[in-house]
């Protein structure tokens, strides 16, 4: 690519949604996370550890940023420090919690940089990671604006599950070895199970039939998961919960800025302006004052 070409195409490059990946999607799995309801309690995160064979790394490795929490609860303060007189002495409005898992971007920045195509887009609209193919270049992690990819710096199977803790490991998915990148899969093993069952019953996958581990345990029902694709198959004329919420909040896939008719609607996607086209919509936190 010459510089002149690059500059010539700059506006196109920056403004339109990246073409690529699958266009004949079977599903488009998406989420809605309501920050009005999220209480930051960690249930989702621990459920994820249980479901997805995530190793506990210990304090030293955690300090180095090697924790493997596919789903982490980020916590922010409005004004963490004291400042001029206008800044309040206390955190009067509490904390802001954001559960962050792989955003399953449709124009994922991690995908094109993988030298071995270990991360790619599935016909389900998922950003998949093929562990067998991964060579551990970590380019994907470097390119993820959300910092949601986790690298196995060690062979955790050696000591992260001393017997009999290893008996809890979920046989539906692997324990990843040293040198492999991993991340949230939207509980692809659960998706797989339900899809297989639906296929055997010769019927479409029903809305609500698949629950990710985080969604299932969330005490306040802040997390919703479902198919956002209801255009292609006539049997899905009934829009799913999640797709209805996206529509209601006037957030559309395939855009880097939303042209909302009602600007006050709470739906937004994080780092949308980077044109990553994430499949997770957040609903803004609400405060009284």
């Amino acid at each position, binding site marked *: 690519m010459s510089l002149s070409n690059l500059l010539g195409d700059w506006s196109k490059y920056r403004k339109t949604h990246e073409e690529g990946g699958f266009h004949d999607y079977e599903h488009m799995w998406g989420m809605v996370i309501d*920050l*009005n*309801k999220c*209480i*930051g*309690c*960690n*249930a989702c995160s*621990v*459920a994820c*550890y*249980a479901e997805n064979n995530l190793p*506990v790394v*210990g*304090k030293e490795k*955690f*300090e180095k940023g090697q*924790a493997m*929490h596919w789903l*982490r609860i*980020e916590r*922010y*303060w*409005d*004004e963490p*420090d*004291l400042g001029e007189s206008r800044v309040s*002495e*206390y*955190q*009067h*409005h*509490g*904390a802001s*919690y*954001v559960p962050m898992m792989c955003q399953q971007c449709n124009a994922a920045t991690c995908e094109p940089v993988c030298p071995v195509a270990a991360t790619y887009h599935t016909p389900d609209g998922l950003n998949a990671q093929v562990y067998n193919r991964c060579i551990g270049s970590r380019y994907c992690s470097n390119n993820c604006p959300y910092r949601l990819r986790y690298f196995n710096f060690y062979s955790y199977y050696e000591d992260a599950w001393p017997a*009999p*803790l*290893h*008996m*809890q*490991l979920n*046989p539906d998915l692997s324990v990843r070895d040293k040198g492999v990148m991993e991340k949230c899969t939207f509980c692809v093993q659960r998706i797989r199970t339900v899809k297989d069952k639906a296929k055997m019953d010769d019927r479409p996958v029903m809305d609500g039939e698949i629950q990710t581990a985080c969604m*299932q*345990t969330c*005490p*306040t*029902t802040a997390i919703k998961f479902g198919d956002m694709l209801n255009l292609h198959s006539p049997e899905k004329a009934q829009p799913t919960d999640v797709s209805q919420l996206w529509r209601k909040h006037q957030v559309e896939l395939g855009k880097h800025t939303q042209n909302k008719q*009602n600007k*006050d609607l*709470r739906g*937004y996607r*994080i780092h949308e302006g980077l044109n990553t086209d994430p499949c997770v919509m*957040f609903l*803004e*936190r*609400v*405060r*009284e*004052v």
Partner: protein
Amino acid sequence: MSLNNIKRRKFLKIMGWSGAGATLAGCDMPTTMTVQEGKEEVVSYLSPEEYVIPGVGVWYASTCQQCAAGCGVHGRVREGRVLKLEGNPSAAVNAGKLCQMGQSALQTHYNPDRITAPQIRSNGALSSASWDEAYDLLKKKIGADSGLKGNRAAWVTGNVSGHQSVLIDAHMEALGSSKHYTHEVINDSVWQAVSKDMLGVANPRVRIDKAQAILSLGADFLGTWGSPVQNAVEYGSFRDSPRGALIQAEPTMSLTGSNADLWLPVKPGTEGVLALGIANVLMSNHGVKNIPSQFKSLVKQYTLEETSRITGLTGEHILFTAKTLKERSPSLVLAGASAQGHENGYEIVAAAMMLNIVLGNLGKTVEGGTQLPFSQMMASEGNTRDLLALADDLGASKYDVLFFYGTNPVYSAPEALKIKDGLKNVGFKVAFSMFNDETTAEADLVLPLASSLEDWGTHVAAKQGARSEVSIQQPLMEKIYPETMGFGDIMLSLLKMQKVDAYAGFNDYYSYLRNAVNNMPGFMAKNGGEAWKEAMQAGSLEVKGRSLNVSSKAISIKMSVPADDAQYPLTLIPSARLGLWDGRHANLPWLQEAPDQMTKVVWDSWVEIHPRTAAKMGVKEGDLINVASEQGTIKAKAYIYKGVNQDSIAIPIGQGHKGYGRYADGVGVNPLQILNPAVDKKTGELAMFATRVKISKAGSAKDKLVRMGGSETQVGRKLAATISADVFERTEGDA
């Protein structure tokens, strides 16, 4: 009274259903039971059935035992192993949801530090033994011929209910013992005492979902107060449009506080004044006239200015709170740990309860709940007055034999109570335990328990949901360690040892429970008397109870606030967390590595210090701090933030274990150690939040305070965006 009647009564008592009373008298009850009935062979539910397909998970219903809330769970079992727990959608307590502690029950079960065989103390140290040796020792020490006087034996447990409670009672009766201490650090016993006195019921059902405004004085209802998952489920509806407002007043931010619309850093011990001050504003600004006469003079005394001065809160915030409570009806006022843990804790909670009466919340957001008909099965709820009583009685050498189950007083009692020394006065201490913890380490005989996922049980949650239930706990897999034993099984053996004939017919706890459930009053008509299968599938038995009503009864109180102390200028807040809880979950690696909700610290203890206090001392985050009370000094790293009152410091409880396994040992400190043994004068509860301390620098720490995330703010990025409630109502009202 006919002979049949007597037999029936006795039968009901053995089976744990006594107390059913007249309401259930009409139902069809068997009056006798053959021995044969009790001798059912346990057919392992894991022996291959048609529906067990290799590679396909099967779900079984059970009840979570990670705290006393009694959430229903579904366990996924595949190839004989339990792999995952989910909430049971049909459970009234938790409606299919589960917290991080519930998720982590798997790690309690598969924990690598479990006790795998009985242990007997010989030559000062505990060493492994066989069950035969254990039972021989028990027979020698407590058997019918041991010469043990019943009043020289007692039970010490955590929260316990259902048939486990029935068997403990039967054992005590057989021994002739009358003392059962129930100790829990995390409790709402002052709230219960006040509810009993002012509303007529000890456990009113609070309706977070129905409230339009909540003022919580230190009740961390999303984390550690009441039934946390049930509360959080209701909180989900509370935040739907019309969205309820949450105001939390507490000296250090709890999980609930961090979700509040307005968080008020009230000075510790002045929560009662705040409640009275709010009543004052309601009276003077909002025309509220129904202040109970017993409270009137107190309410008049705490004017806005006076309340503001004492509590350290701005008048604006107090006015806003009063206005919100008044305008958004029905409201709900709660009081929890940090409000009740003072020498006048009862009065503080009573002042809060008075607001519920004044605001007309009774019957709306504070309901009477349901009285279950089975008094024998009801939960013995833990508290700290039993801990204090135990300390006294140990000091007075009252006991020769103690049984410990589900509580760890050596860890959780302030050192001033000298529990560990007191235990030396007890000749024979039996610990029923899954783990070697601080209390088990003092025992003379350790009986290794099966995990909650390997054992049978029934539970009656103190905080029942919309429907009243007896929850069923069933094993989700075979025992990992063959030498461990279910609690009920051991209890039946102990009862047989005491030659209690009534229980002789039951080979094991399973057959006892099955018999009990099938003979549950009121269930006979269903399924041709076979309630068991239904109970196993549902994970619970629905019980028709008597609806209770709340009726207000004002009481007279006085109000006082803690005096300043120049030598010990700060108040120590030993805050509790959904996670490590009272320390029992410190041996679970998932929970150690789950960042603390507010501070995001992992694998450590810390001292929460307000930036003003820290600046005065020149302390930075991670610096080591000495925290000294009259009772002793502990050292922990500083965490500086604006979520703690300037007159307080906070140290979360749960860490600082010695001998609690590889994940807990050597991590952090235990602030409970240095608490003063002061008590709430009315209820006798430990005043846990009233200990004064001084702090000083202790140099730099060996290791860092490790926490998740590098940035405390969003640095202008739209990560967690916020809008006002007005806009929310405008766009999503009627949603």
